[in-house]
């Protein structure tokens, strides 16, 4: 079975083709083809207009290497939320039109499920198959818009254990970079500077340090950095700047790793997945590896191309429902905010499965 995945929930327009075994046959992201593709000029823009311009070329590109093109696709998966309603509608309307006109099953996917199941993607360009976790496992989803811990029981059974109470970790990196005049996006540049700095040079308070909660909070850390810059200014010499970045990143990483291990301990699970855009952070990967090895937890991190927003993960998240013969009625709506899964288990369509007692 080949599944065409379509993603337009936020900044990226993307299309991909994935088999029911998770093999990625095509994976196209609009911003990545802008520089070398025949569709030059497509740049991510915070507007549904940009998605409208990009979506058909991106789907064409994804299907270009598939025997039979659209006819060679067995099903369609599309992100239905969370995200910007206007942006989501572009992908969803195209997906519905394709499903209706081709008479193929359609599945609406939660974007966050896409991130959670990206670890199951198998990419041709990698030499060895990506090792994958069994169910259940703990997943730390950490990106520009989300920071949360999940207990992943199955492809249609995901329980939110904890999330950030204010800013996402990726947002903390971006805003720190802004405060330090380092440009956008902030994660990679801070990661690079941090690698050359001393993490104990500056002292920042560890947020949500109590072992009583799995929740994250990064707003106070951002404010502490803002106060530091307000009082001491942006460091003029490179080593002090590197030290400041190392100290700031070190606290974010420590918070992410501590809470992930605490989640594994509480749920008595020895497999941890770290996914989402911030999973590309080298400091996070290194610290998580050391901590997991020490605690006999197996760590799984998808390659960076699977961590950032893409449509292959959307197709992957739909594969199991499609294999079970399930699909969505073409009348389904989009949603801007994630259904709160902390209160129980939800299916991919957002309906409650079963109430989890506290």
């Amino acid at each position, binding site marked *: 079975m080949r599944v065409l995945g379509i993603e337009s929930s936020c900044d990226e327009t993307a299309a991909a083709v994935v088999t029911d075994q998770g093999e990625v046959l095509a994976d196209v992201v609009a911003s990545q083809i802008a520089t070398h593709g025949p569709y030059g000029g497509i740049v991510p823009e915070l507007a549904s*207009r940009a998605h409208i311009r990009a979506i058909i070329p991106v789907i064409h590109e994804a299907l270009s290497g598939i025997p039979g093109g659209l006819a060679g696709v067995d099903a369609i998966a599309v992100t239905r939320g969370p995200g910007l309603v206007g942006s989501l509608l572009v992908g969803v309307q195209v997906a519905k039109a394709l499903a209706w006109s081709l008479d193929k099953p359609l599945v609406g996917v939660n974007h966050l499920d896409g991130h959670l199941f990206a670890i199951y993607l198998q990419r041709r360009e990698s030499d060895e198959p990506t090792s994958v976790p069994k169910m259940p496992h703990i997943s730390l989803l950490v990106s520009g818009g989300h920071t949360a811990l999940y207990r992943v029981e199955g492809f249609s059974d995901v329980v939110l254990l904890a999330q*950030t109470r*204010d*800013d*996402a970790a990726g947002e903390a990196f971006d805003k720190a970079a802004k*405060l330090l005049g380092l440009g956008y996006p902030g994660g990679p540049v801070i990661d690079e500077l941090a690698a050359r700095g001393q993490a104990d040079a500056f002292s920042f308070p560890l947020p949500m340090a109590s072992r009583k909660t799995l929740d994250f909070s990064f707003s106070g850390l951002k404010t502490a950095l803002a106060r530091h810059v307000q009082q001491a200014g942006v460091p003029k010499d490179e080593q002090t700047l590197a030290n400041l970045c190392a100290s700031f990143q070190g606290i974010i990483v420590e918070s992410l790793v501590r809470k992930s291990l605490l989640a594994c301990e509480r749920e008595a699970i020895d497999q941890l997945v770290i996914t989402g855009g911030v999973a590309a952070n080298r400091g996070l990967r290194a610290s998580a590896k050391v901590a997991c090895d020490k605690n006999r937890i197996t760590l799984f991190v998808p390659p960076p191309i699977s961590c950032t927003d893409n449509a292959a993960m959307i197709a992957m998240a739909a594969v199991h429902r499609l294999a079970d013969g399930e699909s969505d009625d073409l009348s389904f709506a989009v949603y801007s*905010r994630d259904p*709160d899964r902390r209160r129980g288990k939800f299916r991919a369509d957002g309906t409650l499965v079963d109430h989890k007692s506290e």
Partner: protein
Amino acid sequence: MLELVLNDEGETLALAAALADALAPGDLIGLEGELGAGKTTFARGAIHALGVPADTAITSPTFALVHQYQGRLPIAHADFYRLTKDAELEELGIDELLEEGAVLFVEWGRKFPSVASRASLWVELEIASDQARRVRLDPRGERGDELIAGLSSLV
């Protein structure tokens, strides 16, 4: 115009809750202040006071641009930190949200005419110390004056 010193986060949340009690469909509250000043904290206090359950996290909308909630009124919490052009705002449906009777909290909206022309009240926050914030409530139009008059009797 009303100027206050908020000694800690609790006082910020309390002021936001007092404002929330007076809000009506179509009100747009602009939240201004540098990174870390407490704009999202203020919005959190107001949104919970508008009846969104305490265990619903009111997180920063910087990445998603707009978060929507349902309290005693429909609520939208927007953050235009990442936007550059007024035209991008139109596509986010600010007008539609206001017409549908939502209350809007908008962070980083001052630079956009389509936000500035609709704001009833600007809440300007400033870092005074690690915990304390200075706040200036700057009313616009009759609706802004009403909101300020209501708050002045409370503080």
